[in-house]
């Protein structure tokens, strides 16, 4: 069974008197362990799609099953729980809490999951080690480089062992060399069996994925899967 199952999903926005169709009747399945890139120019609806996949938003029409649960009609608190358990977000602007150090940032999802302090610290240290930041755990975000910040964000996204790693332009604020490093980390995570969805408008980034879904004007314009990833 698919991990993500979109059935005839539409999302409308009311902008004053005008109705914007951000997504029109999208049907899409993503399986466990897939590495998918969602591409499209700005205004194509890819951010809306990401918000829906990440349970930050709910569709206007259609049905969204995540990990076997229908999440299209859940309320705010139920969605928060699903996000905490199922989704790990990686943002273009990192979105770390500026006043908290790396360890505390990574602990945050565990706090909201209700994990005890000692176990929490241990799990968070493990996640930071897996992204190679063991020596930076007490640094605050402004004491870290862009690449390190994004690694903290990835550690935070992975710490709850979510079903999906959902990345929104993860290299958008990084120089190209650091960007390559981050993409290598994603590939490694993919090899280990994580389901990764990257939203991007950069072909270079999308090329790392095994499947590319292209959006245009709120519709799926292409969906290609490569048997072997290109180097």
């Amino acid at each position, binding site marked *: 069974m698919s991990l993500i199952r979109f059935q005839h999903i539409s999302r409308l926005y009311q902008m004053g008197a005008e109705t914007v169709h951000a997504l029109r009747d999208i049907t899409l399945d993503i399986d466990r362990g897939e590495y998918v890139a969602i591409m499209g120019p700005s205004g194509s609806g890819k951010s809306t799609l990401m918000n829906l996949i990440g349970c930050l938003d709910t569709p206007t029409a259609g049905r969204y099953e995540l990990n076997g649960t229908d999440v299209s009609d859940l309320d705010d608190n139920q969605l928060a729980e699903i996000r905490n358990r199922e989704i790990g977000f990686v943002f273009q602007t990192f979105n770390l809490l500026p*006043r908290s150090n790396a360890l505390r940032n990574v602990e945050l999802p565990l706090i*909201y999951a209700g994990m005890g302090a000692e176990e929490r610290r241990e799990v968070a240290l493990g996640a930071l080690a897996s992204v190679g930041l063991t020596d930076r755990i007490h640094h605050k975000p402004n004491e870290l480089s862009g690449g390190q910040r994004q690694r903290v964000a990835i550690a935070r996204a992975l710490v709850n062992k979510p079903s999906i790693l959902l990345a929104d332009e993860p290299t958008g604020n990084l120089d190209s060399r650091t960007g390559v490093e981050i993409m290598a980390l994603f590939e490694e995570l993919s090899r280990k069996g994580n389901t990764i969805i990257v939203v991007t408008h950069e072909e270079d980034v999308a090329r790392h994925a095994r499947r590319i879904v292209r959006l245009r004007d709120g519709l799926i314009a292409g969906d290609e899967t490569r048997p072997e990833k290109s180097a």
Partner: protein
Amino acid sequence: MNLLTDLREGLKISWSAIGANKMRSSLTTLGIVIGILTVSLMATALAGLKESFLRSIAGLGSDVFFIEKFPWDTDNAWWKFRSRRDLDISYARVLARESRYALAVSVESSGSWPVQYRDKSASSVWVVGNNEQSALVRQLTVKAGRFFTEAEVAGGRPVCVLGADIASKLFANEPGVGKKIKVGQRTFEVIGILDKFGQFLFVNMDNQVIIPITRFMSDFARRPYVLFMVKVREVTQMDEAREELRGILRRIRNVAPGAEDDFAINQQEIIVKAFNRVGRVIASVGLFITGLSLFVGGIGIMNIMFVSVNERTREIGIRKAIGAKRRSILIQFLLEAACICLLGGFLGLALAYPATLVMKNYLPASLSPTVAALGLLVSLLTGVISGFMPAYRAARMNPVDALRAE
């Protein structure tokens, strides 16, 4: 995530948020400091006023009845009681003889006259007619000489007992006992001088001249206002004593069965009750007015919390994205407001404490633990109430919009 973890985490976040905006937080809390300061000072002053009044009223004695023409507590007009027959001093004997509950019966009538000894004089001295039992009932003690006897009262002897102040005024360097003084137009022999008594109901009790009631009736007053003070043996039997006295008086005054009493039996309790009634009004008005400053402080908190929520919209978005529920966000901001206010409460009390020490010079008042605890509770409540709207707004934010915020 349970409530306890929410509270603990919220507390951590609040402290770091307050710490990150020290200047702003301390300016905001100033409103609460002033509010709690004024409210706790007002509460302390009110408690002090009450205590001071109760102390002064305690001189009446909780075991003493005051039998008079006029009741102390009445909403009826005084003219209803004015037409009552005067009380006669002879009741004192009857009451003392017939009442089983009465320990002593004092009769009293008084007025103001000049007093003179040789070249020294005092213009308006409180002249009191009493009987031999008055010293006991009025808790007067004699420093030199003696109080007058039953025989002297019965015979209407021209003798007097002086209060401490008037005695030292008339007899600066000589013993007063045995001297003759003029009270009004009459001459009296000083047979005793009282110990210092102090003020009672804001009247100086040491500026009085006490003479036998019989003498007072014949020499000073044409139609005096007479009252009896009956000291009861057991303070636990006040109700029975009152009923007994009432029966005796009705008989003496020939009140027809079923007719209303034409006299009043008063006691200290009545004054306390009346005072409490007025005191409650004063307290509510006083606390309301000082509470306004707390209200203004609360509005300041609300204002700054809205700013805080606005500033941290993105943080709220991040927290929600990684799984914070509405309750967690609500508690986080509520606690921030509550912490600022509680801090203000502690500071306000810390400032109020030395101020109450100064107040102690004028009133029997001190900052009570109850007032302190209430002050902290009120400051906490102010924080929670004024923080609620901003926190609620934060909790209800849409994560997509919040994440997009700059």
